[in-house]
């Protein structure tokens, strides 16, 4: 529904300051995107993709563009490159990489000679109004652009904190790995207050390049997070995406991977926890466009209290994608009678020589496993906690064993303890 004239002021003000700098093509883009958003407004529940998730509360909320805030660095962050953002502003940077490889997106786009700039916006498209609003209002942003064969060994941590009530922050990231480049990127979203975070990330993985991208959502309990991630892979590239949604009041992640080059492979793993009255919705779309492409999707969802989870996973195999191999698994666990999870796996196959499979389950803990552990002397609550942790941790398998996986496991374990504890009260 269109945004009424009287409700536009906050967006116009945010847009005006975002548009102050930048090349003219970008200003034009932004202007158009804002107009589009005003015309179409927030996605409504009538749209199939928003059937389970309502943004009505967000629509009613008084929002504003915040001033630069602070960054919350979590305990035990492993060694690596570190970029800190507060309320969407770049606050700190600790990395030996040159700024042209790892730095602010606005600066990169100002130098139009950079090949990365030409890719900006090409995956995100114009269909989604949340993406349009991000396009209009993002500021500073993040770019990672690795030249061919460039390997960054240590993980690149991007900590994004928002700490103001009513703040709306539209974060924009562009990640480009030229052929043969390798990197690990961990985006951590945290904060405090009833803010709205609306990040858009575009990822290009060049031929034979490898990227592990982790989004760790630890938003504050009152926060809304609507995130969109788009990736395109060239031939024989490898992309591993891990989405851990452990916080926030309403979290929506739209993740779209396009295996566009022959021999490209991807894993998309996720784990979401929905306790209290939280609502966590993952919409994923994996497109096999080229031949001999492979994808593995594993999602684990756990809902407690009156929490609600949604997994909507679509796999599309295009006519040219012969010998494509796609497997999807969505398993979900309900820890309380009032919790709810909707799992909707979908396959659309337009090629004839493919291997595709999917499975989705929603259920409770397996009582025969609980009894087995209890029969060994482990108490009922401890047995259930052990099984719940084991269930969730399957999602972390995409990360190679080591410091990063240990740290992510710790974050997941901590959030799970709080969920189980909260569910028992």
């Amino acid at each position, binding site marked *: 529904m269109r945004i009424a004239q009287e409700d536009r002021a906050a967006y116009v003000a945010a847009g005006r300051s975002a548009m102050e700098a930048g090349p003219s093509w970008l200003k034009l883009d932004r202007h158009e995107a804002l107009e589009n958003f005003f015309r179409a407004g927030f996605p409504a529940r009538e749209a199939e993709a928003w059937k389970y998730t309502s943004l009505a509360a967000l629509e009613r909320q008084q929002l504003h563009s915040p001033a630069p805030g602070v960054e919350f660095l979590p305990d035990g962050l492993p060694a690596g490159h570190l970029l800190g953002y507060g309320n969407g502003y770049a606050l700190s940077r600790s990395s030996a990489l040159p700024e042209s490889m790892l730095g602010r997106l606005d600066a990169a786009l100002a130098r139009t000679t950079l090949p990365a700039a030409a890719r900006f916006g090409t995956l995100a498209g114009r269909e989604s109004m949340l993406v349009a609003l991000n396009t209009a209002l993002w500021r500073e942003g993040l770019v990672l652009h690795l030249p061919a064969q460039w390997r960054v060994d240590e993980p690149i941590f991007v900590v994004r904190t928002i700490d103001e009530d009513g703040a709306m922050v539209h974060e924009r990231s562009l990640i480009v790995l030229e052929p043969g480049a390798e990197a690990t990127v961990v985006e951590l979203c945290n904060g405090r207050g009833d803010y709205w975070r609306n990040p858009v990330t575009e990822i290009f993985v060049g031929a034979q390049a490898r990227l592990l991208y982790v989004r760790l959502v630890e938003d504050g309990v009152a926060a809304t997070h609507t995130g969109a991630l788009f990736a395109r892979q060239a031939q024989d590239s490898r992309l591993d995406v891990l989405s851990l949604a452990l916080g926030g009041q309403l979290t929506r992640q739209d993740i779209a991977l396009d295996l566009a080059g022959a021999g490209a492979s991807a894993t998309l793993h996720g784990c979401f926890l929905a306790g209290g009255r939280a609502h966590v919705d993952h919409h994923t779309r994996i497109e096999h466009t080229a031949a001999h492409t492979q994808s593995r999707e594993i999602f684990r969802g756990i809902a407690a209290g009156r929490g609600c989870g949604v997994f909507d996973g679509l796999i599309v195999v295009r006519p040219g994608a012969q010998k494509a191999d796609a497997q999807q698994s969505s398993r979900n666990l309900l820890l309380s009678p009032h919790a709810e999870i909707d799992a909707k796996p979908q396959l659309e196959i337009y090629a004839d020589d493919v291997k595709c499979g999917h499975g989705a389950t929603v259920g409770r803990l397996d009582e025969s496993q609980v009894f087995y552990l209890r029969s*060994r*002397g482990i108490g009922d609550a401890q047995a259930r906690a052990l099984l719940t942790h*084991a269930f969730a941790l399957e999602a972390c398998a995409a990360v190679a064993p080591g410091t990063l996986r240990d740290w992510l496991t710790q974050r997941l374990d901590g959030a799970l303890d709080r969920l189980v504890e909260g569910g028992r009260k």
Partner: protein
Amino acid sequence: MLEISNLHVAVNGTPILKGIDLTVRAGEVHAVMGPNGSGKSTLAHVIAGREGYEVTAGEIRYLDRNLLELAPEERARAGIFLAFQYPVEIPGVANIQLLKSALNQVRRARGEAELDAMDFLDYVQTRLALVGMKEELLYRSINEGFSGGEKKRNEILQMAVLEPRLAILDETDSGLDIDALKAVADGVNALRSHERAMVLVTHYQRLLNYIRPDRVHVLAAGRMVKSGGPELASELEERGYGWLDTTAEVGEARA
């Protein structure tokens, strides 16, 4: 140690056990034999405390306590161990994690200090040797992808680690080839002691070629129809279960 008297158990309202009496003393090994569907596994599960079994009459006393009042974990901590007929697979929980948590729970209940990681590993090594298991299996998820023989050996390993007072082995011999059977039997024999009692629940006599029981009981249609010494097992092997009068009075078959 274990005294079962007049035990009646129903599952979903259907009577399965119809008046069982069984007394097992410390140091004794008893074999409970019987055809399929006789209630052998039900008896094993009721002793371990599995839910879904309704005790409609009778009682079970264990070390002079009312066993039926205890939760499964309390029974385990008090020294009862059930080796499962179908050991459960638990993806994501390492075997060693279970052994360590379980042992420390049991030790705490016995008033002993918990073992630290090094002492625990040393201890587990000695137990692995006892059952002839590869160390690699410690770090795998519990029973996940284990062969039938590995699963049964894993049960005996857990028993060896936890050192129960009363061990119930539910069809531990089923589905084993002769080497695995011998390995399991060696493990069991090594754990025989004058303080420990064992109940072997089995359909076939062949396990009893390797583990000599003190007493043999025949369970049929929910009743103990015959009890005797080890020679009873051989007789069953020769003649099958058909010659027994399964409608015999309970009183005649008391152990």
